[in-house]
């Protein structure tokens, strides 16, 4: 097994040599991020959990943690792709070799950006109620409907789409997973301006969009399970890494308090100590999950709480930052310490996206604690 110190030293050396510097804002941002992602990919420093055959590093979990940690410490740019997350693992796990061959490498290099077509106006928390319809017509599906809250839709080349192929009543049993070409006729992307003022999300409308049958992932009507896979320990290692990143953000916040002369306030000190605690707990919980997984045990209940905990923590962190900004909290995000204002606005979504905090609590209560459901099927 590759030695941790050697691995870490090699990665550090690579990052020291190739780090592209701080990420620019504005129109040069995306090309900058894509170039960095290509550099990483070509040197073999991407997708720590993926098999080597498909461009990944195939690292054991403890080295995945080291990988994420080193990137975090080096403050490397955030990857512009969501290859690591849902899209990549879905194709890795449920795609054919032809699909993997065609999609994975351009995805990793960020040559082709992807988006996820999941949420709809009438299917938010209750995703299994989605209505966007895909009708099989010979050797193609014809897709009609609408997706909303689609990240990166404006720049994405492809969409991993969940579409209704059964009746509405079939819920999760009548959903098919397709790869949709965002440049195909009938696709309309309308930017969705969110409360931060940015347009990170979009609405995507489909008007009789054709998708060849060979672009289906998995079987007809069996897309629900396909798109819910995560890969190996990718989720727990990357969550652990983001917890470590938050410790750095908390240190930045302590610096902010120091600069603004607030560190002598007992109330501020208490609140900062709470945030230090929150960030450490995210990491410690992550390590416990990883420890259990490494010993071949089930991840256990602690894994199910981490998203809930991340959301609450991010909000509290930024609320504290706003109190430290004082009157500057009334100003826009273009001020000197505007990152905190941006984060304050952005993190309202932390308890909404990918399942609201309420849905997560209900799921934890039912799936982990075994409390009875309310009668409605929920998946």
């Amino acid at each position: 097994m590759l030695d941790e110190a050697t691995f870490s030293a090699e990665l550090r050396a690579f990052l020291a040599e190739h780090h592209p510097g701080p990420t620019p804002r504005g129109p040069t941002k995306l090309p900058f991020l894509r170039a960095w992602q290509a550099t990483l990919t070509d040197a073999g420093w991407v997708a720590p959990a993926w098999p080597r055959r498909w461009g990944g590093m195939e690292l054991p979990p403890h080295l995945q943690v080291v990988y994420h940690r080193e990137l975090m410490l080096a403050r490397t740019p955030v990857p512009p792709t969501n290859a690591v997350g849902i899209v990549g693992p879905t194709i890795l796990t449920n795609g054919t070799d032809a699909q993997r061959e065609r999609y994975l490498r351009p995805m990793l290099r960020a040559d082709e950006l992807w988006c996820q077509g999941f949420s709809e106006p009438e299917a938010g928390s209750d995703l299994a109620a989605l209505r966007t319809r895909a009708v099989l017509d010979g050797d193609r599906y014809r897709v009609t409907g609408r997706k909303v809250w689609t990240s990166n839709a404006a720049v994405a080349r492809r969409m991993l789409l969940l579409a209704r192929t059964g009746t509405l009543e079939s819920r999760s049993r009548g959903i098919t997973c397709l790869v949709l070409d965002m440049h195909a006729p009938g696709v309309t992307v309308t930017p969705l301006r969110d409360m931060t003022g940015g347009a990170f999300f979009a609405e995507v409308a489909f008007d009789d969009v054709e998708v060849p049958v060979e672009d289906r992932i998995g079987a007809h009507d069996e897309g629900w399970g396909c798109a819910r896979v995560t890969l190996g320990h990718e989720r727990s290692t990357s969550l652990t890494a983001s917890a470590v990143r938050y410790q750095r953000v908390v240190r930045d916040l302590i610096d902010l308090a120091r600069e603004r002369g607030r560190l002598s306030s007992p109330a501020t000190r208490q609140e900062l100590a709470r945030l230090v605690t929150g960030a450490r707990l995210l990491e410690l919980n992550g390590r416990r999950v990883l420890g259990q997984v490494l010993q071949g045990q089930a991840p256990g209940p602690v894994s199910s709480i981490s998203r809930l905990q991340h959301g609450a923590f991010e909000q509290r962190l930024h609320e504290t930052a706003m109190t430290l900004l004082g009157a500057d909290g009334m100003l826009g995000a273009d001020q000197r310490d505007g990152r905190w204002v941006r984060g304050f606005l952005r993190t309202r979504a932390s308890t909404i996206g990918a399942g609201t905090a309420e849905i997560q609590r209900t799921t934890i209560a039912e799936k982990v604690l075994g409390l009875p459901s309310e009668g409605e099927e929920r998946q």
Partner: protein
Amino acid sequence: MTTAERTGTFAFTPEHDDLRAMVRAFLADRSPEAEVRRLMETPAGYDPTVWSVMAQQLGLQGLFVPERFGGVGAGFVELQIVCEEMGRALLCAPFLSSAVLATAALLTSDDAAACERYLPGMADGSTIATLAVTEAGRSGYAGSWVADDVTVQAVPDGDGYRLTGEKVFVLDAVVADLVLVVARTEAGPGLFAATGGERAAMTTLDATRQQGRITFDGTEAALVGIDGGAAAPLAAALDIGAAALAAEQAGGARRVLEMAVEYAKVREQFGRPIGSYQAIKHKCADMLLEVESSTSAAYAAGWAIDDGSDEIGVLASLAKAYCSEAYHHCAAENIQVHGGIGFTWEHPAHLYFKRATSTEILLGSPRHHRELLAQRLGF
């Protein structure tokens, strides 16, 4: 290397699981609720037979005592597992005072002669020891755990010393054979071993753990460690105590969560189990988050102690602050989930609530530990 930088993960081993199962079975047999209720009404507050079996057959009192001093020489995490189970069962016994605090005070004093003299008896259960630090305080602020705040005087007399003054909130003061007293000489605060002193019970909120007053009036005592040198070893002993108490709190918190969930599954109102209502589900999910995080926090401190990490102080304070509030909240929510029955004397919910409240204050409040955390992290 700090724990934050380490990529190591922690998980319980099969040996840990065996120890936990053994202690749980023993306490289920020897410390069921009826026994807890019986003992909490007795002046001694513990069962000498059970105490003796714990020491002689299970080796619990000597778990953390090195073999050269007559103990088992196990790790601190093992001791935490025992404390967690005791917290779960609300065991009435002078374990925290003798097997944790007094043991830690002797070990951190680095006084091999004192360790040889006292620890074997403490490990085999024949000596009950306690640590006396807190006093009524000069300005009405009672209960400080800081060595520099003590006023009890130690005056040299022949080969030994004589103590004068009063200690309050001393755990198991009435039953302790040996009292390790933090007292002041001209050189500063030192640690002294005494067997005398006038003992009086204090009526405690948490009847399952006894506290008392010890009045010294020229009481004979022997110096442990260096004259005037108690501050640093005491702080180290209190970190160990805080980590053990945090584990006890995690155990209690987990038990009250289980009670709440069990009850929510069977108690019906409006024709269905109350656990099917989201208001109850969300409470229970939040409790689970706190319980799992408490476990992570407590054992992170424990692993740091076993590793001799430089983060023992940080993690011990973090764990004590977090686990205190988590236990308090879970114990209160358990009463709420139970409704009226949870407010009765006959229901055990109040026993846990009182233990939670008492342990929250013991060894320093969450506020105190958050301030320590801030100082230890350099802000």
